[in-house]
């Protein structure tokens, strides 16, 4: 069920890239607007034909310009969640879901709507649903197609932040059920890092970086076009307890972490996005500091870039966190691989939406 994509075009935007997505894997296509993300997605779904290219899924060729194969979209089994959701306004939620089935079955539609937490809303029309509910219908409809590939085009861009966090958690939970390759198009690197296993960074139609999410999000060169301040690591953590002052105590491989705005009962496994530019490094364990979060580790790499900054990779008990500090600071500290160092993190520097539940830990997953 591997999806392999290779595309080349000169108009309307230049395009030259290729990538593969394995079954059950989520690949994020990220890039600035106008970079060609949507064109890639539309080429996979068959809504646009590149000058040259090949799209194949599970041994089935959907597009091969060399041999003249170009299946129309309705013959490709691609489930698409459109940015605008594109729900059929004259059909109910269940009607929308059944519209994507070869043989419409109400029971199956009800099952899919339950899966996206829309129990009891089957007979509502899109106009009677909130943005978040519409997005869930769109996901259920895409799954009703029994797709070989699931394509999500900026699926969280049209909802408010609180809804987005909930929908992202739901998508993570849903992924446990999905055996097909998933392609997520987004310009939001937080979203990509929270959800995706691997990433393709697209800029002006070219794949400037293709790799695991952790590797791409640690690579200043890859993120140049998107903002170097997005560089970050994901740190696994477990909720220990909620303190009376509103902070939650989390356990990580590098020691305890106190963070605000954390939800979930004790024992809940989380992934916390630690922004590289928010981390302060210290050779000695600091005292008399307002920052409460001090994680101890060992420097594994010091990467100099083109600018005044360097990226320090720190191993804390088997997990990696990143610290983006100035070249000058790194030289003053004399940081080199193998050195012990402490990463200091302000609790307030971790935004609510930078914390995601670990998909494997969901009770309903």
């Amino acid at each position, binding site marked *: 069920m591997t999806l392999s994509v290779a595309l080349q075009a000169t108009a309307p935007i230049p395009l030259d890239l290729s990538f593969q997505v394995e079954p059950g894997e989520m690949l994020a296509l990220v890039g600035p607007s106008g970079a060609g993300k949507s064109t890639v997605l539309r080429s996979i779904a068959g809504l646009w034909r590149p000058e040259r290219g090949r799209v194949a899924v599970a041994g089935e060729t959907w597009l091969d310009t060399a041999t003249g194969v170009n299946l129309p979209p309705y013959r490709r089994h691609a*489930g698409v969640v459109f940015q605008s959701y594109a729900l*059929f306004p004259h059909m109910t939620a269940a009607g929308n879901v059944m519209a994507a089935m070869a043989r419409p079955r109400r029971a199956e539609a009800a099952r899919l709507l339950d899966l996206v937490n829309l129990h009891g809303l089957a007979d509502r029309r899109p106009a009677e649903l909130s943005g978040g509910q519409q997005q869930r219908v769109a996901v259920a409809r895409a799954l009703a197609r029994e797709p070989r590939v699931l394509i999500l085009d900026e699926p969280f861009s049209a909802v408010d932040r609180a809804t987005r966090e909930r929908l992202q958690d739901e998508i993570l939970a849903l992924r446990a059920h999905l055996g097909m390759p998933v392609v997520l198009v987004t310009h939001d690197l937080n979203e990509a890092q929270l959800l995706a296993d691997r990433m393709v960074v697209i800029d002006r139609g070219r794949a400037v970086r293709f790799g695991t999410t952790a590797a791409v999000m640690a690579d200043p060169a890859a993120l140049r076009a998107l903002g170097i301040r997005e560089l970050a690591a994901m740190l696994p953590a477990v909720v220990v307890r909620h303190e009376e002052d509103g902070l939650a105590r989390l356990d990580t491989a590098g020691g305890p972490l106190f963070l605000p705005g954390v939800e979930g009962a004790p024992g809940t496994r989380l992934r916390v996005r630690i922004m590289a530019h928010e981390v302060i490094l210290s050779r000695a364990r600091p005292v008399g500091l307002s920052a409460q979060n001090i994680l101890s580790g060992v420097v594994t790499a010091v990467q100099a870039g083109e600018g005044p900054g360097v990226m320090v990779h720190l191993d804390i008990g088997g997990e990696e966190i990143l610290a983006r500090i100035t070249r000058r600071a790194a030289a003053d500290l004399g940081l080199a691989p193998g050195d012990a160092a402490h990463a200091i993190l302000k609790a307030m520097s971790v935004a609510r939406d930078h914390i995601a539940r670990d998909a494997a830990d969901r009770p309903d997953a």
Partner: protein
Amino acid sequence: MDWTALTLSLELAAWTVAILLPVSVLAGRGLALARFRGRGAVEALVMLPLVLPPTVFGFYLLLVFGRNSPVGALWQATFGHQLVFSFEGLVVASVIFNLPFAIQPAQRGFEAIPADLREAAATCGMSPLRSLWKVELPLAWPGLVTAMVLTFAHTLGEFGIVLMVGGSIPGETKTIAIAIYDRVQAFDMGAAGTMAAALVAISFSAIAVTFVLSARVGRRLA
């Protein structure tokens, strides 16, 4: 009241609507979606009957339908009677001069459907025909109903072209609009008034039906 003329007019309008319904779906959808060179010229041509004086339009149709033209000769050879001054001739003329009334609103109806809905239909596995039936027609139908009501009402009232192409043969080409003129010429104002009032009533109810229907659709999709 000239019941023969009224029946004839209703039959003519019914035939015109029956023929123009599929035409307006195909042409309206085509003009709404297709981007081709000369699209503006086609649209202008469709609109032509709106601006031409009916007698001018009728004059040219008379020439084209006449026994001496290829079209008229072919008709005569196929059906054994001439196209002008016949009910069939009226139907053909009526279809042509109603093109703008049928195609324009249908085109607007299809244009109002967001492009991503059509794409969503395709990615849901619907073939173009199924997408037309399940998604596009249910969304474009207020436009189509408007098109058909306009066509129907306009056919009932058309005078100049009918007179030029059809003459005024009772039971064959004498429509209600011509019957009204006939009665007025004969100073039979009572009969003319009855028929005129009947036309007003029919036209008004047709328009009322469209308004009610499109309001209902508007509420549903709001």
